């Protein structure tokens, strides 16, 4: 026992130190700056108290970015996890091409968000336009020039990228379900749908906890895909929280206000994620 304490500090110490230096200390510095009027260039940061926090709530752009992000998070949590779970079910059925499918579905995750954004931008603006013109389907034209289609563009991009990753998590969970349980249910006369609802889904609930958490927090923090796909346009209607904070800091030179937004952002994301974990955990069943 005593020995393990030694090894604990031996291995964890350096990491803990690094964590404190690069995460904890900057975080507190950031909180400090959120009470100042720092413009990001000079060394003069004057203490202005809570003014930034009051301004945040008066900032219409921040509010609309918040609503947009929340909407996006809700929709993409649903689509990503449904797709991920669906794909996982598909590739665990013992098909001959299962292995190939697994890597194919996971592949988008290996591409960086920025590149993906540009790839999909090409698809939405060029491929969709040509398809729309050829087929006469008007709704395919002018994607990304419109807030609604811009929103769905982001959802499609994000689902395409993250579904494969979620699939891997669900595969691991699905494969840990004992065959005997499924067989027993089969003998009892349960059809495929009943087996899925009453046996499979309750048993993979822990994976859903992880999957929901990852997609929820990732959707809230999304920046690079947002930047490269729409850049927040048209007229900031597809601007998400992270981008709003970045723009406040770097385009309007208002680092204090941006820090204030960032602190609020941090608290919100933490609160939402923790609540979600608490409730998802409650639903998990012991085998």
């Amino acid at each position, binding site marked *: 026992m005593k020995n393990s304490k030694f090894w604990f500090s031996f291995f964890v110490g350096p990491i803990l130190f690094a964590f404190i230096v690069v995460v904890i200390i900057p975080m507190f510095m950031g909180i400090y700056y959120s009470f100042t009027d720092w413009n990001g*260039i000079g060394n003069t940061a004057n203490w202005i108290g809570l003014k930034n926090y009051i301004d945040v709530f008066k900032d219409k752009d921040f509010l609309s970015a918040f609503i947009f992000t929340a909407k996006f998070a809700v929709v993409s949590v649903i689509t990503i996890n449904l797709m991920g779970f669906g794909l996982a079910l598909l590739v665990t059925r013992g098909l001959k091409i299962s292995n190939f499918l697994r890597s194919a579905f996971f592949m988008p995750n290996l591409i960086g968000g920025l590149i993906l954004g540009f790839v999909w931008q090409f698809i939405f603006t060029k491929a969709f336009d040509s398809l729309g013109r050829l087929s006469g389907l008007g709704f395919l034209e002018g994607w990304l020039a419109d807030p609604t289609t811009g929103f769905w563009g982001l959802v499609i991009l994000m689902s395409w990228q993250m579904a494969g990753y979620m699939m891997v998590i669900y595969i691991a969970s699905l494969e840990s379900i004992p065959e005997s349980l499924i067989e027993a249910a089969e003998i009892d006369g349960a059809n495929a749908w009943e087996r899925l609802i009453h046996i499979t889904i309750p048993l993979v609930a822990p994976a859903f906890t992880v999957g929901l958490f990852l997609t929820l927090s990732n959707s809230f923090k999304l920046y690079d895909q947002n930047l490269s796909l729409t850049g927040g346009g048209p007229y900031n209607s597809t601007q998400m929280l992270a981008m709003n904070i*970045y723009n406040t800091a*770097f*385009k309007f030179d208002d680092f204090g206000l941006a820090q204030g937004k960032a602190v609020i952002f941090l608290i919100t994301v933490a609160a939402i994620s923790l609540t979600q974990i608490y409730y998802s955990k409650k639903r998990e069943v012991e085998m």
Partner: protein
Amino acid sequence: MFKSKKILALVMTVIMSMMLFAGCGSQEKKEVSEGNDKVEVNVFQFKVEIAKELEEAVLAYEKEHPNVKINIQTVGGGDDYGAALKAKFQSGSEPDIFNVGGPQDVKDWANKLEDLSDQPWVDLALPGILSGATMDEKVFALPFNIEGYGFVYNKGIFEAAGIDVSKILDYKSLEEAVKTLDAKIKSGELKEKYPLLEAVFEYPAKETWVTGLHTSNTALGQEFSSSIEAFNAEKVEFKYGEGLKKIVDLQANYSSNGDERQKLNAVDYTRQAEEGLAIERVAIIQQGNWVYGKIKGVDEKVANNLDILPMPIEGAKEDCIPVGVPMHWGVNKDSKAEVKAAAKDFLNWLYTSDAGKDYIVNKFYFIPPLKGYENLEPKDPLGKAVKRYAEAGKTTPWVFMGYPTGWGMEVLGNDIQKYLAGEVTWEEVVTNTKAQWEKMR
């Protein structure tokens, strides 16, 4: 026993953590010792168009000055550069030479800029050209070059349509010409010679620097006499707001998305210049002499057949284009003395030595901001066009460097997008942007 283990653990923790940082420490030392025999100047600049040629100029300079090493880093695009520069300063790796826009930038960066008033090029500057870089009668930065923008058009298409360009001198005649051309494109008259031609204009509303800065400057450049005046202005009046609206509408209505203007909000610079003008899909774009290289990269014949039409604002001075300085070179005040000396010397060499001048005019395609270039004429047609306007006095100033930080692109640019999408009326654009200007000052 327990206690000693605990202490040992603590010591190990400290040692391990120190080892983490030992690596960084030794590296830093090495850099310093190297710096003693060779002066290293770090340049952080924004003009992607000249990145390669600037490297060549640096090599030439280093040959003449073997004890100086110059590192160039380029981050392109107006706003990205500003953010990257701030990030660079915050991270502690401050560049020795960097770029500043106009009065707003000079003020923002005031405590980082070296006073360059004693430099030899100051006396060579063209009249008025230093105004944007001067504060309290001190010159803080060297202008890059002179640029002008307007309606860059394809001469061939205008000839084929039988339009006499020399008669386009004001908004009325421009609108007339655009309508004629539009009718001929729609009737298919030009199809044979220009099969891809589908519209008169391409207007990239996605690029808020085109709409929010350049387009708006055609009107505000007549309301304010200089970027300094704009910078000092407590409010903006939009004296020529109606004229500005007409210029925006003209470009939007006669673009390839004329009947669905909201789609212009997805049109970008590449779509406008390379996939528009360069392949002869459109006849006119609102851009400046800097697009020459871009167009040339696609089709040299098209590039050499370009010229610039005026950007007329009805009710103001009409037969003119906005001409100004896009960026300035500044030297970091906090760099070491020998580095600063080398940095100043390099800039001086680049703009006043014969070898440097050759780069400026013939490799960068710059229109020089200084006197002493009499033997070197711009070679590309757009540079020539800008020079022609400048010499005839048919210019208005660039004042958008004096807009409040973020106002042009983030406020006005976005509002123009909303206007094109039909979300707001032009009156609302004017009221909102006026209010924002006052708030941001």
